[in-house]
């Protein structure tokens, strides 16, 4: 039997690629969060640039449409003074039948340093990472249902910003965990950083098999699950979930799992409310909560830039 080395780490145990939060040591997660902390100041300056990635090329390879994540990666790369090339593959090579690895090999021939990859299939960034040149780095910007590590990291950053410490937190993640790469990444991050209680709340149709093995407590009753939580993370519910046999309707979903002020009052008084976006107001979250005093949804977006700057500068330096 062969033992597979964690493909994200180089021989020295440093971050070579960022593919998933699962399997990353606590020290690396803290290194990223601390580095991001130092970049928050940059994003607030009048001249929002540092020269860390000057002369480097960042290829945004999006095989699945995205506005927010792609934009924040682009901004983060530009603030690090990198050259950014955006490729929207859904409308180029993939439709011409070019294989994923051929696309990557071609871009590699144009001298790439960092590939930021989003793909609809779980594991695609791992496949790419196995085939790039030693000096090239792959950052997973979301693969299928598997992982969205930079989102997970920016969620961790936001939680640390408001709550300072993970070791006394109760965190609830609510909604479509089955299809959510955001939930998986955040769960791994929280358990690695020592959050004592992570809860997932949702109907059985939207929770994956054996989810408790990830180290979470499962709740189906949202009121019960929210009780005394310090952090409330709402997940996006895609409209297409209503077309299969997973849920009857958006209205019924909102009745059971939509976050209202009334339900939120069961959480801890200083609870923060997070959402990875884009939000479906009136489906998973009520507008009064989304725009209310507990919401840290917009700061999440701002922190996302600093976190992505941190990840790019760290992998490029290793």
């Amino acid at each position, binding site marked *: 039997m062969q033992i597979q080395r964690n493909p994200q780490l180089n021989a020295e145990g440093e971050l070579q690629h960022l593919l998933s939060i699962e399997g990353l040591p606590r020290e690396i997660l803290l290194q990223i969060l601390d580095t991001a902390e130092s970049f928050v100041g940059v994003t607030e300056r009048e001249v929002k640039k540092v020269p860390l990635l000057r002369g480097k090329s960042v290829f945004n390879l999006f095989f699945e449409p995205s506005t927010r994540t792609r934009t924040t990666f682009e901004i983060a790369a530009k603030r690090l003074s990198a050259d950014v090339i955006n490729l929207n593959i859904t409308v180029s090579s993939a439709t011409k039948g070019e294989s994923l690895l051929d696309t990557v090999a071609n871009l590699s021939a144009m001298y790439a340093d960092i590939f930021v990859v989003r793909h609809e299939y779980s594991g695609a960034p*791992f496949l790419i990472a196995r085939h790039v040149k030693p000096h090239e780095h792959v950052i997973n910007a979301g693969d*299928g249902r*598997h992982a969205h590590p930079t989102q997970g990291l920016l969620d961790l950053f936001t939680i640390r910003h408001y709550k300072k410490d993970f070791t006394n937190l109760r965190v609830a993640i609510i909604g479509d965990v089955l299809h959510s*790469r955001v939930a998986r990444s955040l769960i791994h991050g929280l358990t690695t950083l020592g959050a004592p209680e992570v809860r997932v709340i949702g109907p059985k149709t939207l929770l994956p*098999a054996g*989810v408790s*093995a*990830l180290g979470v407590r499962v709740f189906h009753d949202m009121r019960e699950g929210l009780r005394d939580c310090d952090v409330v993370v709402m997940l996006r519910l895609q409209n297409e979930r209503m077309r299969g046999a997973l849920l009857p309707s958006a209205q019924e979903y909102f009745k059971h799992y939509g976050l209202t002020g009334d339900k939120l009052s069961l959480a801890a008084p200083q609870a923060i409310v997070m959402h990875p976006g884009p939000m479906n107001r009136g489906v998973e979250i009520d507008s009064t909560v989304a725009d209310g005093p507990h919401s840290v949804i917009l700061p999440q977006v701002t922190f996302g830039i600093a976190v992505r700057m941190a990840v790019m500068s760290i992998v490029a330096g290793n």
Partner: protein
Amino acid sequence: MRLHIKNGRIVDPASGKDGAGEIFIADGRISAEGGKADRVIDAKGLVVAPGFIDLAARLREPGYEYKATLESEMDAAVAGGVTSLACPPDTDPPLDEPGLVDMLRRRAKALSRARVYPVGALTVKLQGQALTEMGLLSDAGCVAFSQANAPLADTQVLWRALQYAATFGYPVWLRAEDAWLAKGGVAHDGEIATRLGLPGIPAFAETIALSTVLELVRATGAKVHVCRLSTAGGVELMRRAKQERLPVTCDVAVHHVHLCDMDLGYFDSHCRLEPPLRSQRDRDALARGLAEGVIDCLCSDHTPVDEDGKHLPFAQAEPGATGLELLLPLALKWGHASGLGLAATLARITSEPARVLGVANGRLAPGAPADVVLFDPAAPHQVAPDTLRSQGKNTPFLGYELAGRVRCTIVAGNVVYEQ
């Protein structure tokens, strides 16, 4: 051509014989007595056994010659000691017409290596709607009828197909997988699939379908062979069906007795298989079921896939593993781990599949067809792309250090492979 094999350890699972002895071959058959041999083969240090019979080996002809050709895969077969193989009907076009079956048999025969037993399509184009001409396909040489991995969701069609096959005594080979429950799934529905974010196929996709098949066997009396069991629940259902003396047999693929979903690692597409690799508990139940005889046969489920088909994200990668050349070493590894003797181990790839096929080979009795393999059970076998003759280099066992190498393969009294 008369052959005399001497100094070997003769292992004949059908008779239970395991000991020193010699084998005489004349006119393509095992012969009771010697005479002047044209060639004497010294089998010192080697096991002499019946040639292996593999109930599932895809040769990729017709239709998928870029993945493998009859020639490359027949080479792989005899290099692996496989002297008879059944090929599933999922070629392109599928084996649903007598002409195609006839052509495949002729092509295989012309290569004069392993014997090929085509399994005909149960439904036209494997679409699960209309029955094929089973009688004409039987005349053309089909030994059984199957959907291969194609779904048969319509239970009305399944019922009629089993009734029709039962009328004439044609065996039906079925994989037990509920088409709806398996829809879109690529991995065992459990903790690993949850971690990797892969759509799951629950274990009950197999047990529900198998319960349906067994109920239809009770109703129709059809002779059914269940292909590629993958779950502990499936093994239990087969155990009870056999206690009930239903006319059913079953097999398991060689990767399913050694691997489980944990072997997916970081999305290793070599572990993209149909049915999916399941939990450790399932794997252990399969290995035990095979040792206890609840599962009759071990097969390679040989499926050559080209590199492009595997260099894809896990869910998009083409399912299947190459296996003809690994059948012996992996059977030996399983037998050793199960504490079985060599005769009991080899029974699962010789006499038992012969019984399922209803053929006279798979044993070393005088008068039986002279399909014989000589192998060194201890010789190291490093699994690497350049040691495989099959055009498919896709196997989750790449890099494994196994034991067991075929030294000589004889089909119908002719030496077809020597190393």
